């Protein structure tokens, strides 16, 4: 390869790496904002006027992230937790739920371009109430 082309390739790779790191930081920040919205939604007084608005913003943000092909959100109620994607914060007995089923998402997890930026922090079912 011509020397000036090799230099260009190096600069390009460096720029792409920087962009990737910037995007990672942006994604992490947005997921943290989603966590705060989730928290707000969970604890707003029943029938509060803001509830629908909070939910709308949460959905909008989630959709925007999900639409980005390289971003994958982890952590949803009802999914089976796994050690490589979920951090178990607590275990609870939940009627009708298999062991390791996510009962509550404390913090969402996120993966960017296949690399896990953080796991989801979750409360899972013990499985003791699975037969109920």
């Amino acid at each position, binding site marked *: 390869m011509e020397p000036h082309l090799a230099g260009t390739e190096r600069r390009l790779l460096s720029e792409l790496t920087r962009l990737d790191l910037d995007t990672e930081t942006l994604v992490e920040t947005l997921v943290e904002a989603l966590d705060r919205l989730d928290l707000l939604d969970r604890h707003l007084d029943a029938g509060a006027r803001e509830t629908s608005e909070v939910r709308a913003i949460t959905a909008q943000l989630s959709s925007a992230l999900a639409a980005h092909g390289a971003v994958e959100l982890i952590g949803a109620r009802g999914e089976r937790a796994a*050690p490589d994607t*979920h951090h178990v*914060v607590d275990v609870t007995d939940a009627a009708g739920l298999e062991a390791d089923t996510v009962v509550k998402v*404390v913090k969402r997890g996120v993966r960017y371009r296949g690399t896990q930026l953080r796991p989801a922090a979750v409360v899972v079912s013990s499985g003791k109430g699975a037969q109920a």
Partner: protein
Amino acid sequence: MTAIGIDLGTTNSVVATYDPERKRSRLLTVGGERKVPSVVSVHRRDGRDELLVGRNALRWAMNDPENTILSVKRLMGRDFTDPAVQETRRQRSYRIVPGPDDDPRAHVMLLDEVHAPAAVSAFILEYLAGGAAQTLNAPVTHAVITVPAYFEEAQRKATQEAGERAGLVVKRIIDEPTAAAIAFGYEATDLDRRRVLVYDLGGGTFDISLLNATRDRQGQPHFQVIEFNGDTWLGGDDFDALIVERIIDWVRTNAETDPSGDPEFMFRAKEAAEEAKRWLSEHDSADILLKYAYETAEGTRGDVAMSLTRAEFEAMIEPRVDRTIKLIRTVLDEQNLTSYDITDVLLVGGATLIPKVYETVEEFFGKDKVRRDVDPMECVAIGAAILANTLHGVRCQSCGTVNDESADACAECEHSLVNARSAGDTHVHDVTGMALGINAVKGSHRDTFVPIIPRNTAYPMGEPIRHSFALTDGKRIRVPVYEGDSMRASENREQGVIEYELPQEIDVHSRVDVAFMFDRNRVLHVTITVPGTDFELHEKLRFDAPRTPPVPPPPENRDTADSTDLIFAQEMTTEFLCDYEQYLDPPQAMKIRADLDLAQQTILFAEPAERRRMLSVLESDLFNSGPASALLLADHAAERATGDEAIRLNQTIASVKNAHREGRRSVVDEQVRYLRVLVSAIRNQDVPEIPDAEDYAGLLRLLDS
């Protein structure tokens, strides 16, 4: 061959590699992380059990705390009864049990199966090696593994065993401070005649080591660990816990509720504490805001909104930081040194990045001495990696051939490689932190510690160190090996035991030599020989054998009893010498006369302990003096024997005396053996007037006692 350095930590482990040509080291990520939690757990799903190691195990800990093994390093090679093990039992949720088949060492339960700590460490090492291989894109075959300087024989052996179980050729087990010093030394320009203190404040433990560092004529650095101390339950995690406690206190004060039982609150508080600790390293104040963090008395969710200043944080951790300085003073006092005598201080461990910690150390030693140019999180692994890639085999002392580290004997000339040095050696010399020796009998004291390898001995040793003993129990020998500095064996830590039955042809009065030697990995090689015979036993220490039972306390009113017993024994021994001297070797007779003189002095002037010791010496004279003792016992037994027993006994006594008169030694030996069997049978019925010599269960006796 791909070799790595592994810092196998209590809380986290780190892996590094080193390119000797470019003199570049680098950390290897394992599972995407530079610092891997030293944790093993199990994920049970759909009837299958999957072993989890590292971060995944930690994430799953809450789900199955009983099957999550944290800080297994605290248990490595330790007995179940060890206070450190009992403290770990109190602090951890998993089950810690004694080993199977009377193995006194602590084991852990994982999925209802008993595992040695070495096996659990092997899971971690295997994971680290596998992850490193993935990063390097080459199979990892060899490793240098680090251990704390205070690790004893059994603990080092357990670590080496863990490496081998993980499929690695363990090139060297090296002290953590030495590894840190290697990482530092390769970058230093002026290392001559330095005295280096390594201050290692990790996640859960604190270690101080004092090293002497010099350069030889070729410019190669030498390191010797000359002193160490520490606190096995003090680390950076304590600082996080203090902040969490402060958050809990804030809630208690402001909301009059205790959130510490809420796992979700504790998770968020711990995350916030770690973040605040990092923030306070560079800022004067940190805000801790946790929305809807706890349940109020009214049933609503309350917020944590507090701030923590650096001054408050420093005041919180000050007692613990001061404790580290107190321990440093102890180390310096032990060596009669002051802070002025230390030329360099190396900061190791993530917690040394906290300003309060390094500023306190700088204040104590002087800022110019404290080196922070070595990454404290990485330097131990990097030092190990340097060594792993500098050593390239073991050089045979006989023919010079370089063999692989896994070889026991030279591939070329079959010469033993036990005391061979590594090829490409960096001339790094670790020294033993404590004396290694055996429990033997001295006089009547059965709890005597006889050091064989003294403290501060450099290894690999060029040749073994030998010590001579006598037998106490016929052919059976039991050599419990202890490590420590107390003259009482029971106050040191038992590492293992060697038990052996000597062959019949060995005279029970023979001298027995015990030789100890440490190879380059501080693995102990024990040789037992009987001078004047071909007998030579190369035995390995059994780490899983039951420990030596505690010495029973002396009975009450023992002092009076001792005097009476000693006078009685003196009279008996005088009679014995008079009646059986012809059956004693001249040196034996001389020794007994000298013992009688000494006994007279002891009765008149000595302390009770010395009288007991003398009593034991006379008892030994009476009952362990070859054919003469056998005849004494037989004559006493014959007075009680009746019928056929009496006839057989008297015939055998006559045979012994005849054979002795005729100088037929082998016949004497044979008849004496027969005599002992007969006497034993009669004694089992009733021969009360002969006091038994104490049963020492095969312990060896110091020759000069």
